[in-house]
């Protein structure tokens, strides 16, 4: 194992109480969502977590940041065991570890202007004067290439791409070491998506951020990440540098996933290669 990784995840398991179907008595069924995940992430490195629906990729992100309580295994962050931190210790940790969500429309308060939305994490963690806060909000808007005047706008007045920039700015407000981004470019048009990806790449480099980028889209991960981890039913089937995994996938499931992606090249045989009868 490399020395001094920023994040070390070992044997991480997550079991959640299942939805009971029909009337059941006694103890609820527990469903294993994550079945022992191992990986490490260095400072400034970016890792893509990919998989299809139900693979556990979102749960993995949420467990690392302790929105879910793991049932086994450990998470070490900046050389500190964080698996079982209590609520107040977690609060301090959340300054260094931030999350960006898929749908900025539902993660931004529709009744607050962008300025107060960006100032909220500052108020929660630092004592600042009004002038300092206004200054920092302006810096954050600069950082994500939005006009400073946007501080006075409401989320619904912004386009999807602009809202996602606000989501990114809010996550960066406290200068975290690690950002976990869950499907943050999924709902966007390709031209907007390309802009957000370019922004994330430059932020990652300028700020030395470590990034966990959760996505169902392997092509997007290729653009943004150094390494990739492929999840299937709560287990890691393959991980390695993007370059290698995408060029020479070792696991049959990774190969199947890659072959199923319709690349924008005309290829009449692509559809015929699968059976009509699944």
């Amino acid at each position: 194992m490399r020395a001094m990784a920023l994040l070390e995840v070992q044997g991480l398991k997550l079991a959640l109480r299942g939805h009971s179907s029909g009337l059941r008595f006694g103890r609820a069924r527990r469903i294993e969502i994550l079945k022992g995940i191992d990986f490490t992430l260095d400072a400034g490195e970016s890792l893509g977590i990919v998989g299809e629906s139900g693979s556990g990729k979102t749960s993995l992100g949420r467990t690392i940041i302790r929105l879910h309580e793991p049932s086994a295994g450990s998470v070490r962050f900046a050389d500190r065991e964080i698996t079982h931190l209590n609520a107040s210790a977690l609060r301090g940790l959340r300054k260094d570890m931030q999350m960006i969500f898929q749908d900025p429309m539902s993660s931004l308060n529709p009744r607050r202007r962008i300025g107060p939305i960006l100032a909220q994490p500052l108020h929660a963690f630092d004592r600042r004067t009004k002038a300092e806060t206004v200054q920092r909000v302006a810096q954050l808007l600069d950082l994500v290439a939005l006009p400073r005047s946007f501080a006075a706008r409401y989320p619904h007045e912004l386009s999807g791409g602009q809202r996602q920039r606000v989501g990114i700015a809010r996550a960066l407000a406290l200068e975290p070491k690690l950002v976990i981004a869950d499907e943050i470019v999924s709902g966007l048009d390709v031209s907007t998506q390309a802009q957000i990806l370019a922004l994330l790449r430059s932020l990652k480099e300028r700020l030395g951020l470590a990034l966990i980028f959760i996505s169902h889209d392997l092509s997007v991960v290729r653009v943004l990440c150094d390494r990739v981890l492929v999840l299937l039913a709560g287990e890691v089937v393959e991980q390695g540098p993007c370059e290698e995994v995408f060029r020479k996938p070792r696991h049959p499931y990774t190969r199947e996933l890659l072959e199923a992606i319709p690349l924008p090249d005309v290829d009449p045989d692509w559809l015929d290669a699968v059976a009509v009868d699944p």
Partner: protein
Amino acid sequence: MNDMLAIEALRITIAGRNVLRDVSLAVPQGHVHGLVGESGAGKTMVARAVLGILPAAARVISGHIAFDGAEITHMSERERRALLGRGIALIPQDPMTALNPAFRIEHQIVDVLRHHFGLGRTAARAQALELMHQVHIRAPERVLRQFPHELSGGMRQRVLIAIAFACRPKLIIADEPSTALDVTVQRQVLRLIKHLQARENTAVLFVTHNLGVVAKICDTMTVLHAGRVVEEGSVEACFERPAHAYTRALMAATPRYDQPAAALAPVPEALSRDLADEATAWDARHGAA
């Protein structure tokens, strides 16, 4: 060749703003035609105009829509009902909202068959089972008894494909039919649509934002931007020798897992400005409605 769908210089406004600016396209019998564009380009508006389900505020200012040689631009409610299903069918984007959550699958398919063919209950049931086989659903008897929420996304989409093909329509409008699915399931659903389309020689207008999907399933395509056609032709021509800068820019902005990050280029701002200017100039020439 016989055009199943022919749209000619269609102009539609909403609240006085142009949303389609003289859009023309044709889908010959047995062809799959891709309608591509980003959100707001007007692709859904084209689909809705063909189906006769435009938003209440939309006005068709000029232009024509012809189905199988007959003008359908301004249909009455009665004419539209006679046409939909048997003449033109829809494969919608979101199978969860397209199916009624309160009824079993069998009920929803049998309804369609009874309505369009006047079949008796038993005959309709037998036909529904046959349709389930056609779309390669395993354990069709069980699926027919299930409710939509009990099925996976891919299964629900198969059911809707079965309903769309049930009346053997001449034209199918497929509105982002695979967008919400995982890639492996998407590939199977696309394969199924292509298979049934080829067998029935159906014309398909395939609406999508995904260039990759167009490249794999379509014969011809139209690229829309701000309600204007910027590129049209065979998929080979459009992908291998795109004529318009916007088509090239869209392709360059599409990430690919087989190419390094450096290959990705956002749409140049100058191009976006030029396109916006062209749309404004179009409006100035044609006046607001």
